[in-house]
């Protein structure tokens, strides 16, 4: 009996650290894979592109005639100065934000006027947003062509600030992420980058045109 207890004790002595290691490997593998999918493998992820074809939806004139479905890819956001390039998808729920930068569905889409809001995780797609400076260029490559913005302000606000995701009369782009960028738990603040439009494509259906940023009447074909 004593021998049997001793054997059990020995198995426990070796088994407990082995179990801890196995648990650690499992946790690291599951969340590491999820992290890889949201960062390095993001460009390879297969997303359903926007198609304005739903029956029963209101049709608006201009860009994005019908509402994109949640999770559909609207385009790609590129901020060359800080090496950000990520897909933009419709919606900002927990699951959708794993697919890339989310467009807040309650805000207009680029080209519709008003305050366009894009949000991304501080530890995946928007990690480098902390390095953005006033004057940097933000490009949103859409199915209609590139919408180009220039950063005009950067600020940090509490997460409950009611003055960020609000309608505006003039067109602008608001990028949001959590702040501090390195924080254990749910970050209490938000990092806000505001940008104003520099140029946008022409609404001409089926072709990709870009209007001159200086407001000239002529339109140029996108390169």
């Amino acid at each position, binding site marked *: 009996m004593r021998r049997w207890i001793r054997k059990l004790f020995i198995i426990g002595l070796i088994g407990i650290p082995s179990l801890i*290691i196995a*648990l650690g490997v499992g946790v690291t593998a599951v969340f590491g894979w999820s992290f890889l999918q949201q960062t390095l493998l993001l460009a390879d992820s297969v997303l359903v592109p926007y198609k304005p074809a739903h029956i029963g939806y209101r049709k608006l004139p201009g860009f994005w005639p019908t509402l994109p*479905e949640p999770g559909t890819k609207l385009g790609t956001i590129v901020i060359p100065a800080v090496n950000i390039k990520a897909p933009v998808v419709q919606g*900002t729920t927990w699951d959708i934000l794993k697919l890339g930068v989310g467009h807040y569905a309650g*805000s207009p889409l680029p080209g519709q006027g*008003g305050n366009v809001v894009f949000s991304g995780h501080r*530890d995946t797609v928007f990690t480098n947003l902390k390095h953005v400076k006033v004057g940097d260029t933000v490009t949103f490559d859409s199915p209609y062509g590139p919408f180009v913005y220039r950063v005009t302000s950067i600020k940090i606000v509490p997460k409950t600030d009611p003055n960020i*995701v609000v309608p505006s009369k003039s067109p602008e782009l608001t990028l949001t992420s959590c702040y501090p960028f390195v924080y254990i*738990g749910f970050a209490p603040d938000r990092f806000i980058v505001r940008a104003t439009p520099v140029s946008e494509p022409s609404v001409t259906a089926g072709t990709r045109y870009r209007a001159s940023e200086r407001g000239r009447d002529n339109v140029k074909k996108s390169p």
Partner: protein
Amino acid sequence: MSLRWKLVLPLVAGITLLVPSTATWAASSSSSSTQQAAIRLEDALHALQIPHVSLLFAYLESIQLSSQEVSQITQNAAQMQKIMGNINSPNQLTLAQKEEALRLFISSAALAHLQVATVLTNGQPVNLLTYVAQPGNPLLIELEDEQGKLLATIHPQYYDVQPKYLNSFIHNVAVAATSARILEQSKTFVPVPHGQLPVTASNTPLKIAIGLGLILIGAMTFRPLYRVAQKLES
């Protein structure tokens, strides 16, 4: 210039000025009613205890609701209020009343071009006819679009599943449908008036760090424990 022209010219000028200002007034009045509808829709969705309203708001604004659909939703709300009028808890409803209430609820959602899925927090589907509201058995109501894409999740707490809440719930569905129809007739996208900043924090790196920490702890304790085990064995 004749006297007649002296009288006519200011009149023409007045009408010329009045017409655009009337048009501007009409446009601003229409814009104001659209804004009011947007506020009512957002408030109604918040009253339905939906934490993130943006997807549902945009969806309701974009679907084409007919006036018949809106009036039927309003009628359903009135019928629901009759059913809930004389009870203190939904558990007191008879099976027939439950069936009728459920039919009205599903019908209202379908009229608003929504699909409803009722599940427990572990994802198990729930039959509302046999569901007994009690603490520790929380219910999630998932609202999906016609393609089955999740738009919003309602998290009613036990103390919320009371006739007063259910009455207000149905009333707010009717308010939302009425407001959505006004917004849908707008020729532009009407944004959420008081949007909340999305939650952009994820704890994935922290969880990876915890996993690595566990591996480290396991590795550090393995060697000394293995030595102890060897000593015991010998």
